């Protein structure tokens, strides 16, 4: 446990000093949100406004964890993961701590978009709904954090970066972050329902509107969590051997 906390402290320090990463992952979703929210407000479309307040926060959280997770490819190329392997550190600790630091990086964009929604665009929720939304937006991104870590463990830095950016764009469209899923082509809607992004956004939207979560959404997300944790662990064992 002491070891895990020490490692978490090290990685958190690295995160806090990564100013450019923090800025990019904060500003990108915030700008997107402001542009789209202005449009919705102009059209007096409060439904879209409250939708965007959740989905653009999810978009920001996802961007942060994908970027951070695929960044582990650079640590691997630099021999840091091999060094960890030569220390009393288990792959599960590496994966757990890195997933958690990735998720810490998701906190600023989530909070920023929620605050912008509440203060700038008059989005109304009860305090409990706000709290639940923020919590779901933060916790629900875990499967994506683990998925990105697995990719980062297996691919060279530039390739990992490219895959995570492509995945980011694709998943955010298919997952229904830009527009509700029912506006997608029919065949894509089925695909969307099994992605972690869609179910993540669904749970967060339900929390924002004070609705009880759907069992199907919880199940799909839990399935992704388990699968991506397994994938990240296997990738970590494989990836930190060589190089």
């Amino acid at each position: 446990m002491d070891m895990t906390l020490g490692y978490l402290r090290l990685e958190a320090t690295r995160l806090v000093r990564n100013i450019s990463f923090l800025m990019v992952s904060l500003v990108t979703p915030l700008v997107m949100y402001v542009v789209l929210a202005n449009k919705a407000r102009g059209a007096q479309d409060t439904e879209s406004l409250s939708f965007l307040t959740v989905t653009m926060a999810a978009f920001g959280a996802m961007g942060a964890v994908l970027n951070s997770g695929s960044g582990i490819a650079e640590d691997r190329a630099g021999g840091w993961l091999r060094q960890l392997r030569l220390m009393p550190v288990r792959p599960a600790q590496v994966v757990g701590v890195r997933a958690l630091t990735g998720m810490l990086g998701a906190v600023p964009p989530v909070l920023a978009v929620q605050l912008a929604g509440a203060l700038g665009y008059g989005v109304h929720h009860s305090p409990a709904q706000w709290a639940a939304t923020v919590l779901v937006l933060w916790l629900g991104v875990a499967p994506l954090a683990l998925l990105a870590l697995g990719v980062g463990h297996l691919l060279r830095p530039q390739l990992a970066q490219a895959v995570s950016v492509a995945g980011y764009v694709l998943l955010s469209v298919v997952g229904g972050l830009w527009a509700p899923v029912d506006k997608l082509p029919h065949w894509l809607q089925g695909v969307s329902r099994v992605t972690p992004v869609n179910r993540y956004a669904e749970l967060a939207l339900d929390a924002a509107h004070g609705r009880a979560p759907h069992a199907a959404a919880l199940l799909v997300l839990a399935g992704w969590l388990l699968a991506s944790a397994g994938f990240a662990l296997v990738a970590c064992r494989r990836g930190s051997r060589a190089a």
Partner: protein
Amino acid sequence: MEIGQTAATAVRLSGLRKSYPGGAAPAVDGLDLTIRRGEMVALLGRNGAGKSTTVAMMLGLLEPDEGRVELFGCPAAQAVRAGQVSAMMQEGGLVSRVTVAELIRFVRRAFPRPLPTAEILRAAGLEGLARKRVDRLSGGQAQRVRFAMALAGDPQLLVLDEPTAALDVEARRELWAALRRYAARGRTIVFSTHYLEEADANADRVVVIDRGRLVADGTSAELKQAAAGRIIGFADPGMPVSQLAMLPGVLEAETRGGRVRLRTVDADATLAALGPVRGLEVTGAGLEDAFVALTGAGR
């Protein structure tokens, strides 16, 4: 029983074999090596002799095709997890955006019985650099940090792959002094090098590896004696090398810069057959000659 507290053998490699896909010859080809606790052993060999592959298998980073690795009687991974082993690899292994002190603090927390921080910084010559960012250090300073990380956990076995590669003369001297102090505490040290002088000056025991095989094993004095005999040098009398090589006792003959150099197992017989020559010099062969003889590097 706690791992490693009772085993008298630090490292046991038996029948190790490793080929890389596409490699013509195996990188390691049937290597047996046993290292006792408290020994300071040099793995000496040319570049590409199989040293780094051997080290990687010794540490459990690479799975051998055949053979076994035991550290303190356990599989390598288990000894690493128990904090018995630590290593300084040839390159890399540092991390960005942290200070030297932060990195050392992390490593100390990872090991069950680490050295005191001040002692680590002193041994690695890092006093005054503790607050500097690791990614803003010079090559030599970074190498010291890598050494400090290897030392921090106070491991029973310290493995160093070409440890002096990025260091200047002064820093090398300091590193060897620190390693000898570490060894004096009863710790086992294994280092690989292609520098003969380093092996000669710092190891209790020199293990020569060539083409993935162990070709010699002993103290450097033993190796010099066993492999090389004596060297006879004199001004070139204009005799063809092929004829010089036929003289009694001669193992090897070469002419260079107007001088002849013969390596011989029987200097008296060689000189008697040679007759009078000018500028004669007879010396004991150095470790370099032993190395050339053992590995055929000059051929």
